[in-house]
């Protein structure tokens, strides 16, 4: 117990570490909030302009015609209302739609390539509007695949869609905070490894088993990580007034799972890479930031791009999985397959990282120190 308290003190007195693990996510959250405040506080929005190409190829899924129609505002309307979010032009010629898209007259076009596939979406730029179209298309496709009848009334309003877009940024921020917490484990473990620090050598020759030392260190690191995340949540919900949906206990549960993955990543970096402390920090930061980038931190469109072109990347990318889990909790419900798949994926990644770390850390003697 006394050792744990000392471990807390050692970590909390490391100002640089506390800044990166605690302060940096809060600063990022504040910057994100500043960047999106105009969107968050905006009352209405122009409908998203799309072209729907009607040709003989779209006979298999006539539901798309109906759904898009029900989601479209009356001709000439300039504001969205409830689920009426599109200003749709029906065209029977794909080339004409493409021309409109290139001229920036529309935000996206929906067309059928052949009679057996779902329709395709073409957008020219990655923007909020293109993301909204993408979301709607995904939801319709998922309804058809699951054998449900798609209810346009269940579709989120444009405002909610907009908030989803913004929240994805904060979800990736939470993912970043979870993984950045691994830095605490990396630094704490380094202090206990004989091949890394002189204090580690002293601990290695002491009368306490290595397993006990490492478990104690990781427990302390995890608790500190959770304290940091709790502070971040308080800031996001109490200060920035962000809404994490109706399933807050599950959000907390999922955050703890994400933090566990961060802990495993930090342990892995400490155990596996035989480099100095700064380089380890660089590796962990690099993995986290690159993962967050692919996971949609700089805009959800990057996540969609990665998902559609190299899907395996985000299947093994903890940042993307964590942000997707938060999204699934908010957009669907805790019983959804998507959420639990994310939970299981994180546990698998955590297990793999932990197993490799244990194999390396089990070593008791070194070739050189």
């Amino acid at each position, binding site marked *: 117990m*006394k050792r744990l308290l000392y471990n807390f003190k050692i970590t909390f007195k490391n100002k640089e570490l506390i800044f990166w693990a605690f302060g940096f996510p809060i600063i990022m959250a504040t910057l994100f909030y500043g960047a999106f405040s105009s969107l968050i506080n905006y009352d209405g929005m122009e409908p998203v302009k799309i072209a729907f190409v009607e040709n003989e190829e779209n006979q298999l899924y006539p539901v798309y015609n109906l759904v898009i129609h029900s989601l479209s505002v009356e001709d000439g309307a300039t504001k969205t209302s409830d689920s009426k979010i599109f200003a749709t032009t029906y065209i029977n010629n794909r080339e004409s739609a493409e021309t409109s898209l290139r001229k920036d007259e529309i935000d996206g076009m929906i067309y059928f390539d052949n009679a057996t596939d779902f329709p395709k979406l073409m957008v020219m730029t990655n923007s909020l509007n293109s993301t909204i179209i993408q979301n709607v298309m995904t939801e319709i496709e998922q309804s058809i695949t699951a054998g449900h009848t798609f209810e346009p009334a269940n579709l989120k309003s444009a405002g909610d869609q907009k908030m989803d877009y913004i929240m994805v940024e904060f979800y990736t921020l939470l993912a970043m905070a979870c993984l950045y917490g691994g830095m605490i484990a990396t630094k704490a473990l380094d202090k206990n490894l004989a091949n890394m620090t002189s204090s580690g*050598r002293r601990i290695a020759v002491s*009368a306490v088993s290595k397993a006990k030392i490492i478990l104690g260190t990781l427990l302390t690191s995890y608790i500190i990580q959770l304290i940091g995340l709790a502070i971040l949540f308080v800031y996001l919900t109490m200060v920035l007034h962000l809404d994490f949906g109706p399933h807050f206990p599950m959000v907390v549960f999922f955050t703890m799972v994400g933090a566990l993955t961060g802990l495993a990543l930090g342990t892995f970096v400490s155990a596996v890479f035989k480099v100095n402390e700064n380089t380890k920090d660089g590796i962990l930061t690099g993995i986290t930031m690159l993962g967050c980038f692919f996971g949609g931190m700089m805009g959800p469109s990057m996540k969609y791009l990665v998902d559609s072109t190299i899907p395996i990347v985000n299947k093994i990318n903890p940042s993307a999985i964590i942000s997707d889990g938060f999204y699934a909790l908010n957009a669907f419900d805790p019983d959804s397959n998507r959420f639990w798949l994310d939970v299981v994926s994180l546990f698998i990644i955590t297990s793999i990282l932990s197993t490799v770390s244990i194999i390396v850390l089990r070593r008791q003697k070194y070739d050189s120190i």
Partner: protein
Amino acid sequence: MSKTTAGSIIEVKNLTKKYKELTAIDNLSFDVKKGEILGLLGPNGSGKSTTINCILSLLKFDQGEIKILGKTMAPDALDIKREIGVVFQDVAVFDELTVWENVNYFCGLYINDKETCKQYTEEALKLVGLEDFKKFLPKKLSGGLLRRLNIACGIAHKPKIIFLDEPTVAVDPQSRNNILDGIKKLRDDGATIIYTTHYMEEVEILCDRIIILDRGKIIAAGTNDSLKDLAKVKERITIEAELSTKIQAKIAELRDVVNVKYDGKTMVISYKDARKNLAELVSLLESSRISYGKIFSERPTLNDVFLELTGKELRDQ
């Protein structure tokens, strides 16, 4: 429990450690008797720290056997480790904890009882003279005080066996004296000490037995006196005087003189035996009516022994 050499608390047999092509320790064998201070003396890179790290089971080694307290040493031999204290060459403390907390933390790795641990912490701080610096952070301490803290962290739990790896490197004379006094106190309290250094004066003052290492091999071992007996020059007399060529020749012909060096002001005379040399020299000078300034006699140092055995100075590297 296996058999041990009588009275030996540590036994090292045929220890060999290689780093790729470099043999850092070459078939090293020695033992340490209970209650003695054994000095491992050698220049930097001679294998002193590597030997200690192998004994402590921190380093893998290619060949050999190490027993402590009659048992084979291993990384998980916690019962043996409980009896060992180590003061590493590098200062091994936490910058985030105060002096008192550091000693208490490391003592707590051996002593479970909170009150005993507190008491031992206080005693260790007193031993190294850091009672007035309890609340200081390590970065506020001078180099010498930091070294003392390093020692306190290693010995606070009152171990039976203490490894001190160059504990006085880069410390001021006051701290060095304090550290050496502390080590003597530990020996007087019954600890067995293995002390590595490249300062020959320290081993001369402290150690009951000395092993001189070079390139991972033992080149000589014994007590301070027995090692000095290995030197061909048993006495060296230095005299400041103006000496004619005739007198210089007479001095060179004195009994047991093996070498004479004169720079016009100071003469250094080396003898192969150390019996009545000074008296004979003074007698010669007075009978020749030669006035002289300083005159003093020196016994050979361990550095002389090392020089004769290896052809280089202890502090060459």
